[in-house]
């Protein structure tokens, strides 16, 4: 025990250069405050005997100061006289001004408790008329710059030892005990370290809880514990539970967000999305086209576009048949856009092969100079003339778009060639369009499950 404190003080004061007050020492070593003060004194004396000036101290002096300025109050005798005069009349300010400054008999006792750094100790002692007590308040390795820094000691104690139950633990520190303390048990979390003595030591708390309606107290207890959950933790640690709550929250939210972008949405997500997007249904239609346009240029947005389109398609599929019709129209529109896009892209994709591009329509044109229509098996087949756009790079490096006539074969079963055409052209671009194509391949189903059955 004797060695402990020397060690502890050596570590904290000398090595860690911390400010140690007698209270911090008493809390750390679980000793009485007076004993802690003695320990501080002993350590201070020994260290300074070894090497002077290593440890600095602040002292707390209690006593009666010399009367530099008298306390201005009335002595009993004088006031008695004044009182009888002024008993039933308004007070006269002139008489009060006549109070003498110096009092011979000072009936008011003034004690001073003064904190002083060791370098000023003698000067401070001189100002005292009589000193009733003096002890070391704190120790530090270097000189104390700002004496206000000592508030740090108490603040640290409040933080470090906040979990201690004062009614239990503080007895060993030498705090004045009060057997009549009434305290409510309002905390639900970490129960006090010694629950049995806690019950004995706080009979009043129990009395309080039993005399009042237990239901009410419980309700309040639970309410208070919820309220005091953040409060019961020390303020510095208050920050930690809150941020720890936040990251999991964020993570969960994050996963929600990302799920919505994933392919193969779950039903729940879809339901959620649909609830949200029911509101934004009118926006879904125009969104299709711009989304489609974007996806041409930026394949990175492929997934998003696909999902948004999926959303919109899912929404549309879920809603009524008129929306289905809208969808049809939209799909058709998309087809056109896709078509042009599809045709543009392979040509754009070959900017270098100008001749190749130019050659193609020429060959096509050469192959089928005539428009013919044949009828066989209920199908009208033939060749027809169609205007096509050709983008050509001319000698200056400019891309020039020309409209030229071209021949293509067609048959009566109009949807078939178009659809067959669409998948092969779009499959190299976007699987989403393929999905859209597949969706449009079965317009009659009007059922969201059709979308999932393929997957």
């Amino acid at each position, binding site marked *: 025990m*004797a060695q402990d404190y020397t060690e502890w003080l050596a570590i904290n004061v000398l090595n860690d250069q911390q400010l140690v007050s*007698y209270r911090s020492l*008493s809390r750390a070593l679980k000793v*009485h*405050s007076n*004993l802690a003060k*003695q320990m501080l004194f*002993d350590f201070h004396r020994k260290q300074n005997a070894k090497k002077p000036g290593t440890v600095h101290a602040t002292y*707390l002096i209690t006593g009666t100061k010399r009367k530099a300025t008298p*306390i*201005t109050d009335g002595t*009993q005798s004088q*006031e*008695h006289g004044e*009182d009888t005069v002024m008993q*039933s*009349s*308004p*007070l006269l*300010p002139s008489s009060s*001004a006549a109070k003498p400054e110096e009092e011979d008999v000072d*009936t008011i006792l*003034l*004690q*001073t*408790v*003064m*904190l*002083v*750094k060791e370098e*000023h100790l003698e000067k401070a002692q001189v100002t005292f*008329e009589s*000193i009733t*007590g003096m002890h*070391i308040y704190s120790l530090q390795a270097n000189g104390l710059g*700002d004496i*206000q820094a000592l*508030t740090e000691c108490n603040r640290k104690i*409040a933080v470090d030892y906040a979990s201690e139950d*004062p*009614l239990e633990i503080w007895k060993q520190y*030498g*705090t*004045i*005990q*009060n057997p*009549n*303390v*009434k*305290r*409510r*048990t*309002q*905390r639900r979390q970490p129960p006090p370290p010694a629950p049995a003595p806690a019950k004995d030591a706080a009979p009043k708390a129990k009395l309080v809880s039993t*005399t*009042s309606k237990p239901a009410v*107290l419980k309700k309040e207890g639970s309410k208070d514990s919820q*309220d*005091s959950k953040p409060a*019961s933790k020390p303020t510095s640690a208050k920050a930690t539970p809150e941020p720890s709550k936040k990251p999991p929250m964020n993570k969960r939210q994050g996963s929600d967000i990302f799920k919505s972008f994933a392919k193969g949405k779950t039903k729940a997500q879809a339901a959620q999305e649909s609830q949200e997007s029911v509101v934004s249904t009118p926006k879904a239609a125009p969104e299709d086209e711009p989304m489609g346009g974007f996806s041409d240029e930026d394949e990175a947005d492929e997934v998003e576009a696909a999902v948004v389109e999926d959303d919109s398609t899912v929404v549309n599929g879920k809603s009524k048949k008129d929306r289905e019709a809208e969808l049809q129209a939209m799909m058709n529109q998309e087809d056109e856009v896709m078509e042009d896009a599809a045709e543009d892209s392979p040509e754009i994709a070959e900017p270098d092969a100008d001749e190749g591009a130019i050659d193609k329509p020429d060959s096509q044109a050469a192959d089928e100079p005539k428009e013919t229509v044949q009828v066989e098996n209920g199908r009208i087949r033939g060749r027809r003339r169609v205007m096509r756009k050709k983008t050509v790079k001319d000698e200056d490096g400019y891309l020039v778009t020309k409209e030229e006539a071209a021949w293509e074969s067609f048959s009566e079963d109009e949807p078939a060639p178009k659809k067959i055409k669409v998948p092969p052209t779009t499959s190299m671009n976007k699987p989403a369009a393929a999905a859209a194509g597949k969706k449009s391949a079965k317009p009659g189903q009007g059922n969201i499950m059709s979308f999932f059955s393929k997957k």
Partner: protein
Amino acid sequence: MAISDGDSELLQAPSDDKNEILNRTASTYTPLDSYALQKGQYSHQYASLYFVRLAQLKPAVEAIASEAWANFTIGSETATRKDRVLDVRQGELCWVAGTVYMEMPLKPNVLEDIGKEHWIAAPPSRHKYDEGTNALAENGERGAHAGGQKGLVGTQIMLEDESGRLRLTGDYLNGGLLVTGAIVAVVGTENSDGDFEVLDLRVPDLPRQPQRWETEDGDAALAGKRTTKKRGKAGKVAIVSGLGISGVEGDTLALDLLMEYLLGESTDSASQDQAADISRLIIAGNSLANASPIPSRSELAAAHSTTKKGGRKTYGYDSSAYNSAPTDRLDQWLAQLLPSIPITLLPGDQDPTSTALPQQPIHAAMFPHSRAYMSPPSAPEAEGPGWFHTTTNPSEFSVDGWRFHGTGGQPVDDVYKYLPDCEERLEMMEAMLRWRLMAPTAPDTLWCRPVEGEDGFVLKECPHVYFVGNQPKFETNVVEGPVGQEVRIISVPAFKESGEVIVLDLETLVPEVVKFEVFDEG
């Protein structure tokens, strides 16, 4: 420099002496809810407050006056009593009772405020209501207009009751302490100007003082039971005010010293024994510094003029400006004291509670840690007050049988503003006791609530101890009453400035002061 033997005990190597655990003296505490309010307080007119007050105090003052002036003769004429203020006749010697009203040039006047708000910058505030332009400008009052020299020049004193007003004159008034709202009886005659010349003046004086322990034993006595209970020797009570915790300032070391002293951890064992004798701590107002969100006039002007946030005016309360550090600090400080000592907390003018008197107790929500020591709001009344008792301002309670009456300082500060050339706070406190009014200047210049039934600020029973917080310095005195009452009046200084705590011995009612300071090299 005499160092007594006691000091060496702690300046030595750790000894194996058993350090004793001290137990604190107990105290019996009975609060009175004289100032607790019911709901729906603002539905009445303020003017009725004066009539009610007059009705309550008129009998008392007339009794005294009739006794004093029964044979008041000048020449051959005897003073006759007049019922109403307007009944006085010219040339007739008579006496009448009414309410004093002081018309002072620099008193805050609402109509002037409204008129001048728009086109004149607020003039520098006045220390007292009748100071001239060469007075010290101090923060506090609003809307005064310049004019008037020192003294009561420019001030008009009137006596008022239900019938009307009567202007008072006479040299007698120059020496007196009078504020608006005091109920007095004056004897004199009406002169040719129509003013009443005052020859003498009487106040209601102190009311009846209950015996010690009357609050606790009174009910039992009425029921005829034995009232002599064995009571132990009473300890002491510590009174402090103006802690001024602001959460940002760095000079809170004195607060820590105070806490350690009260807990009995600091100082030597002799002082610790003394500290163990302190059975209760009373905090009389202003525990927080400037916690009120109501901006002062200068702050409002700054907010309107500068382009803050792009010139947008922020209406209402800006909740982002809330800083919880002061209340946290106060709560922590209280929570460290509560396991050892019971505390009574009165609010002050800077505390987060209502501004109008009587201020209601600071809500338990402000004290998450200390809340455990308060009695739950649903607890039955029979259980008594909590260990940590937040109470009203002003407040009346009984500690160890003695009746305590205290305020956070606002009434006395307001009375101070009315009195020219008078700096004696103790005299004002004494005057307030003799007028039997805790807040005489309410509702004239002191914010209060309108009441219907009775004026809550009228003193019905004389306290044994009357303390007022947040005063410039510590002063104390004993006031004697006509039937042997004795009141110890204490003006408690603000701890933030002075570092003083008043420790009142409950057996003798003699205070002592303990001062906490940090040695200043300068």
